[in-house]
């Protein structure tokens, strides 16, 4: 039983790591702010949840679990909000998404 | 309560400051801070008497033993500096009211008194403590309060000079902190007494030398030692007048005390060549400070700035005595510390009175002013004589001891430079005296309405009283030299004998 739990937690952690990594690659590689925020915002919530769930599985019952749940809740609350606020602020400030078609044509 | 004097000394102003903030009425705050500072003065005098009676006092804060808890360690040197600082604090505050109500906007006046008390507490804390890190903490308090005080000056440039001082002061404080950290790394203790015992074991290491260098440079920045003095004239010139009085009398004194403490108590550099080199550096810097700063002072038209340069020169004298590295040299330094506080305090208060009348202290505006403000300018003349070092004033006493100390080591050229410094002092003091007493009053060409301000005669009593207290002290201690001489001698012997 313990083995199974630790395997599941390991899988969760690794999946989380993968998502985090893919997210940051997106943040670096993507052409403009809105695509970047897409890469970061979308992966972030799931990745954080997966990692925290992985930790919860090995934590066992107790105050540690409670704290992890609190962190998870907090992340679930704040990170989409922050992404939203960022996107909105950027939009309102007049930042326009890059027109990819346009750019490709320019390049050619 | 008697056994708690060391801590009362510091916490009275320290806790008085927030209490003062609660009052929030300028006059109430003023009265309250006078009460606080007078209590502090009484404590410090009682403390000095106690030290004279029973030797070094050690006070364990929180009841924890010395190297684990923080220790207050009062010996002759501390007690002496504590009296100087708290006395000047009390005297300045008495004189503060008129100047402050003119120079600082009303809602900010309580804040001024709060900062003043904090600065006082910080300086006293640096002096009283026997713990290296505690020194840093109180250094921060006093520095922050000082920046605030300077920035309150009504000239726009006060902000700039305060900022300049802030940068320099922060660098200095950081250096001191690095030095303390390195020392802790090498010895595992922060208590100064403990450090002094444990440092000789590791004194050959680079880390200790580096920490020595850091602390030396850090303190020298705070001290306005000659090449690092550039912040001082600006800070003194644009600060509110009263703040200049206080700073000139105390801040550099406490820095000198720190230098003495670290140099003679904590670090015992064993290699004689190294020690000789350090002393030579001190002597050279001291001489350069005396000559160059006095020379610069002659060319100043703003009298506050002139006296500020003169302060840099006086610091040079103290460093000179210090670099002689003998009991009598150190005694001369300590004496000058005391005496300089008296005379510069007096001179700057006199300037406060002038500034209260004129709004500024340019040399040209002083013409003939002595006839209108005879008491103020009589005080200025006596203070100036003292600064020059004329017999029967305190200035003579400390210079005499300095000359004797130099003669002891047959460093005749030092005597020459001291005399030259005095001559330069004669010139810059004479310019003021001449303008005030002997030149005809200048016709006031500004709008007729303003003339009334200058026709009123003498400075307010609240300024004259502290002014003349200081000036009379100048003469009294110049004639009856027993008190400062005996104490400074004991202190100097303690530093050399105890180390």
């Amino acid at each position, binding site marked *: 039983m313990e083995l199974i739990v630790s395997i599941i937690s390991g899988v969760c952690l690794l999946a989380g790591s993968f998502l985090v990594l893919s997210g940051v690659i997106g943040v670096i590689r993507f052409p403009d702010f809105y695509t970047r925020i897409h890469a970061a915002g979308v992966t972030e919530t799931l990745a954080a949840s997966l990692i925290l769930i992985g930790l919860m599985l090995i934590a066992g019952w107790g105050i540690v679990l409670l704290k992890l749940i609190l962190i998870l809740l907090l992340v679930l*609350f*704040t990170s989409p*909000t922050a992404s*939203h*606020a960022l996107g*909105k602020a950027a939009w*309102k400030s007049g930042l326009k998404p890059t027109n990819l078609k346009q750019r490709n044509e320019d390049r050619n | *309560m008697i056994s*708690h004097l060391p*801590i*009362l000394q510091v*916490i009275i102003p*320290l*806790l008085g*400051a*927030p209490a003062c*903030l*609660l009052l929030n009425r300028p006059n109430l705050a003023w009265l309250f801070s006078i009460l606080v500072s007078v209590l502090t003065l009484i404590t410090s005098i009682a403390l000095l008497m106690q030290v004279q009676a029973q030797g070094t006092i050690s*006070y364990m*804060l*929180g*009841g*924890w033993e010395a*190297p*684990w*808890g*923080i220790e207050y360690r009062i010996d002759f040197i501390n007690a002496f500096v504590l009296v100087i600082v708290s006395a000047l604090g009390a005297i300045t505050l008495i004189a503060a009211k008129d100047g402050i109500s003119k120079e600082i*906007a009303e*809602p*900010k006046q309580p*804040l001024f008194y709060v*900062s003043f008390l*904090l600065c006082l*507490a910080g300086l006293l*804390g640096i002096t009283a403590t026997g*713990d290296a*890190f*505690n020194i840093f*903490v109180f250094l921060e*308090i006093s520095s*922050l*309060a000082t920046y*605030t005080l300077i*920035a309150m000056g009504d000239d726009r440039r006060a*902000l700039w000079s305060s900022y300049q001082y802030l940068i320099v002061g922060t660098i200095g404080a950081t*250096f001191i902190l690095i030095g303390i950290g*390195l020392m802790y*790394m*090498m*010895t*595992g*203790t*922060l208590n100064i007494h403990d450090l002094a015992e*444990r440092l000789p074991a590791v004194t050959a290491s*680079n*880390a200790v030398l*580096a*920490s020595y*260098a*850091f602390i030396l440079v850090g303190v020298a920045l705070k001290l306005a030692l000659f090449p690092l003095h550039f912040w001082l004239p600006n800070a003194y010139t644009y600060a509110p007048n009263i703040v200049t009085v206080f700073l000139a009398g105390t801040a550099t004194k406490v820095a000198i005390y720190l230098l003495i403490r670290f140099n003679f108590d904590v670090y015992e550099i064993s290699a004689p060549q190294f020690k000789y080199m350090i002393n030579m550096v001190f002597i050279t810097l001291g001489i350069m400070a005396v000559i160059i700063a006095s020379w610069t002072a002659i060319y100043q038209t703003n009298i506050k700035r002139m006296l500020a340069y003169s302060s840099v020169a006086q610091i040079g004298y103290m460093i000179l005595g210090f670099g002689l590295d003998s009991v009598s040299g150190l005694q001369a330094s300590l004496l000058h510390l005391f005496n300089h506080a008296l005379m510069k305090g007096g001179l700057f208060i006199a300037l406060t009175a002038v500034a209260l009348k004129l709004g500024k202290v340019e040399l040209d505006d002083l013409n003939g002013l002595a006839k209108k403000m005879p008491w103020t300018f009589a005080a200025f003349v006596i203070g100036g004589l003292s600064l020059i070092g004329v017999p029967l004033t305190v200035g003579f006493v400390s210079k005499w001891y300095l000359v004797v100390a130099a003669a002891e080591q047959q460093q005749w050229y030092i005597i020459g430079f001291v005399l030259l410094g005095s001559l330069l002092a004669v010139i810059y003091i004479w310019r003021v005296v001449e303008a005030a007493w002997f030149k005809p009053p200048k016709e006031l060409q500004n709008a007729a309405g303003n003339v009334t301000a200058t026709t009123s005669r003498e400075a307010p009593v609240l300024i004259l009283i502290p002014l003349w207290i200081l000036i009379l002290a100048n003469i009294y201690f110049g004639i009856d030299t027993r008190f400062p001489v005996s104490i400074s001698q004991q202190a100097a012997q303690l530093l050399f004998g105890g180390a």
Partner: protein
Amino acid sequence: MLFSIYGLISASFFMSMDAVDVAFTEAAVGAGVSPLLMLATLASVGRYQKKPTDPEIPKVALLLVIITGILLIIGTLDMPAFGAADAPAHQHVAPRYIKESPEEIGIPNMVTSVLASYRAYDTLGEVVVIFTAGIGVLSLLNFRRRRRNIHLIDDIIAIDEHKILRIVSKILIPPILIFGLYVQFHGDFGPGGGFQAGVIFAAAIILYVLFFGVKYAHQVVNQTFVRVFSAIGVLLYGSVGVVSLLNGKNFLDYHVLAENPTTAQHIGILVIELGVGITVACVMILIFFSFIENIEKVIQELRK
């Protein structure tokens, strides 16, 4: 923003050096509040900035930095290796803290027992430093007394209708405050204490101001309130010392507070941490309000 990242990263650095309390402080101060305050400064002075005129100064500064760096490296060359058990720093004072503090103070978090009891006086000094900084900012910036009710900045805040953010922060603020209390009173057992709690509290208030405007925030905590309480925090801390003085013990000797020495230490630490928390929170809020008022002043001048 880079500053805030620096704070975050250095905090994880402290973390890996096992200095949880330092990391905690860095997390709260370095990453959270200091960039906020810095930005507030920028917002209020940004329009006056000029290019530095003297090209010589950076060179001199660079030279100084290099000299200092060389000196530091020389100094650290023969320093004991990091983590070496025989380093003098681990030989003299520190072992006693580690050995005796559980018995003498009776709380598990040793950092707290050093800060709040063995070296409580230093901590008092630090609190006063913060208080002094608050006074400094107040005396430099806070010019206005009149026209309290006009809050131009509120208009600006109200223009952006961040509905989602408003709701989320409305939900978040109470838990943040409760968490602040937890940190405040949990300092004996885990990392935390008055400094961090104060900053968390202040951060919550700042968050509130950013979305709901100064007017509403002033209804909860106004300038006078913050001013008074920043002083009261220091006085509370000091009063513990005065109580021990009045009972004939040395300043800040907690043993007078109860019969049982560890209980006494507990009470003492709780009270002084409370004092620290109050002062820190109030000074942070005070500085923030002062900056806001300054920004308002700038806006007012512009409108004229």
